[in-house]
């Protein structure tokens, strides 16, 4: 109680100084940068003063922490940009920059009022408590009614002491309330605002989405491996045992046909498993990457498919997987619905994206909202990518996916 009251007192009193400094500084920079802004030095001056302003605001965040319990978190976004111009605009577009300035201006009247009120309340109350020690020295015959008996008579002075002691908790309450009110006002202006919170939230969402997508891609590869090394291997092993058993059966054994049937059933199970694995994550994609997998797709397609791009380029697994299925679906559609004969698949990389483009010579008229294409779109959008289809009647159909990597 005493501690928090003392903190509030310290905060309120030091606000007078801080407010004065803040006012001087804000007047100086408004005038200084305002004048310099018409010259070339405007940008660097703005950045320099913004830096100082931020340090002052940081001091204020710490000072408010005396009352609030912990310092107010800083709301600044990283300043990016190579040129002064870019950095100036990065600083100027942050609401935090202007909120800092607003607090430095507001702090002066608030700090002055709060600080003086705190000093007066404390001095008057403490003076009342120790009244017997000094009130005799300042006789004031012209004092108005309640003060006259309180100051001039001995019982009055002790009465003043009792009154002062009774008022101590009230004074302490006033100090804490005033300190808290001012610190909370500081928090409104100096804490991260909606802008910063939204930016943080977006960054967080982008990261979690990336993690989910990566985890999913890793999971698909794991499932593929588990199917191959687990289920499939066990079935093959069972088939081998069965084959050895069949060898030991006499040629005319009635069980021979059953063993043979069992073997064929195992084969069917394996064929089905392989088909499943290809649909989940084609092994060649893991083995050799996107270009080799697309070349294999091209080889298996009834169309004459030309693949363009750097064969040695590798991309993140999730991107390769999505791109692969876009191309697989695109080639299947071109052959099945568009009646195309040739198709050109281009894989291109820029600094931030991988672009997959399929151009066929078919009759066009593809329905972008069809279930196959819609599924692809969702898959591409999960990676923050974009799928576009142009397919005028008469063709050609151009299917393009842009995937950030």
């Amino acid at each position: 109680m005493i501690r928090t009251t003392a903190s509030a007192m310290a905060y309120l009193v030091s606000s007078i100084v801080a407010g004065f400094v803040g006012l001087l500084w804000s007047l100086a920079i408004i005038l200084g940068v305002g004048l310099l802004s018409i010259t070339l030095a405007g940008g660097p001056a703005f950045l320099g003063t913004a830096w100082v302003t931020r340090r002052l605001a940081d001091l204020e965040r710490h000072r408010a922490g005396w009352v609030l319990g912990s310092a107010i978190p800083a709301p600044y976004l990283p300043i990016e940009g190579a040129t002064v111009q870019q950095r100036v605009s990065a600083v100027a577009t942050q609401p935090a920059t202007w909120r800092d300035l607003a607090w430095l201006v507001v702090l002066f009247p608030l700090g002055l009022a709060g600080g003086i009120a705190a000093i007066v309340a404390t001095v008057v109350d403490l003076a009342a408590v120790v009244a017997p020690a000094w009130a005799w020295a300042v006789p004031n015959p012209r004092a108005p009614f309640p003060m006259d008996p309180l100051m001039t008579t001995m019982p009055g002075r002790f009465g003043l002491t009792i009154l002062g002691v009774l008022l101590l908790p009230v004074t302490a309450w006033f100090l804490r309330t005033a300190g808290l009110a001012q610190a909370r006002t500081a928090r409104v202006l100096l804490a991260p605002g909606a802008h910063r919170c939204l930016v943080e939230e977006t960054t967080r969402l982008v990261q979690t989405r990336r993690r989910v997508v990566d985890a999913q891609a890793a999971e698909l590869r794991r499932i593929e491996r588990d199917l191959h090394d687990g289920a499939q291997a066990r079935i093959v092993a069972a088939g081998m045992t069965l084959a050895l058993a069949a060898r030991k059966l006499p040629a005319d054994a009635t069980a021979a046909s059953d063993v043979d049937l069992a073997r064929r059933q195992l084969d069917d199970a394996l064929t089905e498993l392989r088909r499943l694995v290809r649909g989940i994550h084609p092994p060649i994609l893991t083995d050799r990457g996107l270009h080799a997998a697309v070349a294999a797709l091209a080889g298996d397609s009834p169309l004459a498919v030309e693949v363009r791009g750097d064969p040695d380029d590798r991309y993140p697994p999730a991107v390769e997987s999505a791109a692969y299925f876009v191309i697989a679906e695109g080639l299947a559609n071109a052959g099945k619905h568009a009646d195309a004969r040739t198709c050109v698949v281009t894989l291109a990389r820029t600094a931030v994206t991988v672009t997959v483009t399929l151009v066929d010579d078919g009759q066009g008229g593809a329905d972008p909202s069809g279930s196959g294409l819609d599924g692809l779109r969702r898959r591409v959008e999960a990676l923050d990518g974009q799928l576009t289809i142009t397919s005028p009647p008469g063709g050609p159909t151009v299917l393009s996916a842009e995937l950030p990597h």
Partner: protein
Amino acid sequence: MRIVIAEDLLLLRDGMVRLLTDTGHTVAAAVDTAPALLAAVAEHRPDLSIVDVRLPPGFRDEGLRAALTLRATDPDTKVLIVSQYVERAYAVELLADGRGGVGYLLKDRVTALDDFLDAVERVANGGTALDPEVVRQLFTRNSHNHGVDGLTPREREVLGLMAQGLSNAAICAALVLAPVSVEKHITNIFAKLDLPPADDANRRVLAVLTYLNH
């Protein structure tokens, strides 16, 4: 026949060792990684290596790459690749040197014991063995196989079996044809694929390659 096996799954490695020793072959070494395969082949000089495509440490196509390395350093090395899946591209890479003595089978085929042993013999003797699944993948493609386009259905069938690595006699048996007609079909195939007369075994590999590459 002395054989080296490279397979990382204990269950399958043991199964294959049992199968081969039960049928009178000698397994000189059974290893589980690609580097160990290279070492084992250098040490034992086997008649044939049976290699899984996917091996540790990377679990990608280390086995296939190791097989290609073996063939590059010693062209006489005979390699039979077995895998849980088949990729036409891998078959092309194996056959590309046109020398034969290679095979690429699904692991499932191991359970058709006689066919598997047949393939083992064929590859060890410098022939080829291609999985029917690879051949089937080729049949699903219809257009732009220019040379292959001109083949009659019967010739395609014969080419398919040739691609699997079957001998003329085996093709006769499989299609219930007279040896003369099989030879006639094969001559027609070589002519239509524009393969000049040469060593017959070599031409068979080239025919299959032409088929695979289009």
